């Protein structure tokens, strides 16, 4: 009797294990089908000419240069804006003793903002940055909008990283007569840095793939020039891909596939950098 119930429990365990394995592979499998499909369509179109040409009416001549450089511009500016603001906010919320309800209020708002759909940020960007502040459909307006979008993610990731720093490190720094700033600067931030950077880069890769808010603020879909300054109009990879994919000609769908490969490579490179930074910083600490 006893044995039978034990066997039953083992059976349930095995079934659960199999279900988990199956569902994990299902996700991976779908991803591989996608990758396979995209590469089969796009690889043939992927060459230097594709990387070095502007969009064109003719699929043979179409290239991704303006979108790729637009993405680089946008991400550089987004990083410049969002990293200092996000990390500073995280330090304020995590390292300084809580006064009043204000920081609690900020915390709740940040958690909520992380869940706001990106199109809403687009509307906000359109009203505030494009129209009210008069930046037009420029890289600056796009970067500010993107910064708003990823700030909650950066703040939450940076707070997690700061929270993971053992309290004992802060205490021993304080006990040596360090001021708050000296403690944060020399002991807490170096330990939290790998975590913060990983969070930042993951947030930035989200910004790379984001389309909706940029369409909302009016990033152009057909850009036959390279942006030369922060006030220039621009396009980015996902918008260009969307544009090609919505054309009726079959060749353009294949061009879109090639664009997707470029986008994926950019994302993989950013994740690679995140992994590399984390290893580098962790080795330096040991």
């Amino acid at each position: 009797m006893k044995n039978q119930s034990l066997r039953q429990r083992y059976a349930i365990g095995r079934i659960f294990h199999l279900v988990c394995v199956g569902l994990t592979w299902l996700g991976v499998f779908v991803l591989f089908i996608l990758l396979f499909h995209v590469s089969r369509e796009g690889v043939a179109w992927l060459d230097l000419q594709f990387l070095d040409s502007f969009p064109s009416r003719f699929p043979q001549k179409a290239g991704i240069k303006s979108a790729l450089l637009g993405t680089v511009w946008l991400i550089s500016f987004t990083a410049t804006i969002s990293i200092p603001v996000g990390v500073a906010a995280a330090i304020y919320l995590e390292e300084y003793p809580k006064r009043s309800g204000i920081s609690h209020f900020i915390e709740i708002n940040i958690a909520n903002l992380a869940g706001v759909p990106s199109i809403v940020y687009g509307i906000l960007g359109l009203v505030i940055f494009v129209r009210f502040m008069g930046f037009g459909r420029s890289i600056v307006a796009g970067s500010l909008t993107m910064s708003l979008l990823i700030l909650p993610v950066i703040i939450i990731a940076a707070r997690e990283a700061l929270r993971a720093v053992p309290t004992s490190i802060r205490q021993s720094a304080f006990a040596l007569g360090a001021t708050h700033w000296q403690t944060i600067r020399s002991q807490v931030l170096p330990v939290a840095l790998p975590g913060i950077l990983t969070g930042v880069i993951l947030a930035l890769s989200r910004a790379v793939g984001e389309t909706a808010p940029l369409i909302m603020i009016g990033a152009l879909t057909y850009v036959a020039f390279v942006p030369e300054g922060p006030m220039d109009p621009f396009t980015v990879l996902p918008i260009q891909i969307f544009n090609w994919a919505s054309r009726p000609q079959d060749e353009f769908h294949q061009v879109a596939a090639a664009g997707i490969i470029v986008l994926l490579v950019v994302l993989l490179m950013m994740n690679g950098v995140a992994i590399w930074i984390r290893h580098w910083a962790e080795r330096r600490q040991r």
Partner: protein
Amino acid sequence: MIIETPNSSVGKLNAQEILQAINVTISYSGNPAIDNLSLSVPEHQITAVIGPSGCGKSTLLRSFNRMNDFIPDVELKGRILYMGEDLYSSEIDPVEVRRRIGMVFQKPNPFPKSIFQNVAWGPSINGYTGSLEERVEKSLHQAVLWDEVKDRLQDSALELSGGQQQRLCIARALAMEPEIILMDEPCSALDPISTAHIEDLMFELKLRYTIIIVTHNMQQAARVSDFTVFLENGRLVEFGNTQEVFTRPKEKRTEEYVTGRFG
């Protein structure tokens, strides 16, 4: 200055008093952890604070260098005088207090940096302009760690053994050249040999520094300290010469505790 305390044994202290607590009450969110305690700590002696868990030993110790400031809702009434100056007066900068009164924690907590940087950081952030190398070497000598680490100063402090890490933490505190060193159960995470190392070290250190040590280990208190404070439920039960407290305690509760009948 002689502070009147409920306990007559204080009067027998003839060493100079460096730290005095006068009617100190410390409460967390209104609950007192230390209740109207008065105490005088003699200079260049080792004073042990003993008592059952939760009696307020650590709270008391941390009030001496204002480490309680970081705990929210903590409130201190009464006065703590360091060389006659009230540590809690509004003119005193808590950072300055911690420069003069160092602390060693229960668990060895070196910074995740090199051995050298661990010791050098304190002086360097406090505007020390002399040779950091000399200061580091001197502090490591004082902590009897120099011979073990002199060839690997640039290695990570985390590669040291637990006992070495704790001596490094002591060296780190010594590098600030404090007057008083507070030790919060410094040996509770260490093996007996490392514990013996640290106890030997304390005898050397007391020539130059005043040491206040919180300990759970009665034998340790009896071995290393000159004076013993026995706390229970946040109240000072007995304070006096260690030998007397352990062999001829005045209070019944003290006798019961030091003979291991409770706690």
